[in-house]
């Protein structure tokens, strides 16, 4: 009987550890998502809208998963340095200039990028800060 109790407690203990120990990446993703949302509200929402819907032909929507995927390594550069070329989003051309946000640190860019690519119907998963830093070093300076 005693053996039975001890082994069941031990079993419960192990289960508890496994359940509480979420994947580190999931925790990071949640972190990035919540910080990214704040940055989005402050820097992006004015033009791109609360739900990433964009504004007429002035600002493109952020709901084109195909565009986001195809330009994945460029997204960080666009967020930080803005855009001054025409972009095709959802089959429509957008030519307005996007302002640069030089005040954003690499980690901010990573967080807001993860937020955008995992909101508004997008689900592209986690991108670590180290990858974003690398992307930012390879930006073409306009």
């Amino acid at each position, binding site marked *: 009987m005693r053996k039975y109790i001890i082994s069941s407690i031990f079993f419960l203990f192990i289960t508890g550890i496994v359940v509480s120990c979420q994947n580190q990446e999931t925790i990071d993703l949640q972190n990035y998502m919540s910080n990214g949302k704040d940055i989005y509200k402050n820097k992006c*929402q*004015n033009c791109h809208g609360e739900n990433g819907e964009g*504004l*007429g*032909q*002035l600002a493109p929507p952020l709901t084109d998963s195909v565009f986001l995927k195809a330009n994945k390594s460029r997204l960080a550069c666009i967020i930080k340095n803005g855009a001054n070329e025409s972009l095709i989003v959802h089959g429509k051309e957008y030519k307005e200039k996007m*302002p640069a946000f030089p005040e954003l640190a690499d980690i901010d860019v990573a967080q807001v990028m993860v937020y955008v690519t995992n909101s508004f119907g997008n689900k592209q998963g986690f991108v670590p800060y180290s990858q974003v830093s690398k992307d930012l070093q390879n930006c073409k300076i306009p």
Partner: protein
Amino acid sequence: MNKITIYLATSLLAVSIFTACKQEKKLPFYGERHAETVKDATGKEKIDTVYQTIPDWSFLNQDSVVTTNKATDGKIYIADFFFTSCTTICPTMHRNLMTVYNDFKTNPDVMFVSHTIDFKYDKPHVLKKYAQKLGVDGPKWQFLYGTKDSVYTLAEKNYLVAVGEDSTAKDGYIHQGYLVLIDKDRRIRGAYDGTKADQVEQLKKDIPVLLAEYKK
């Protein structure tokens, strides 16, 4: 029998009190006011309140046509101040104002007037492009260009909206995001923060109230 009569009388009284209290909603008047002695139609003198009104104006619109206050004659309109390269509050203001525009697009008594405060860059053809990209076409929503002096004075003195150049601001200008509701007699009847969805909803409710004042 007597009791019934009393009941009936009280309930009638109650009903009449309630209906008497029901006053039609009227929008407030903004700005300065003063009392003036005026003569009514019969020549009798009486004292009346005179409210602040929007003075005559004349600007170039998005089609480079000289547009004056005559364009808004007999209409109520919503005025605001913005500039096309603004990346802070203007996109939100105009996103919200677009929803008002779409609601009242077919109402001939409602107009929209947006003044640019960027007198250097926002020439009529820039405004035209902006309007088209926003999704606005036709004369119902006027985008107006004027000199710094004329626009800034109109904003601050008459529409009571603060505007200004500011080299420390990200886009070079600062301004308030009010949507100002003007009645057919050019008086200010409402000011709504165009960046706040709930205030824009209130504007949508107030427009029919203001229009109803003129239906009598």
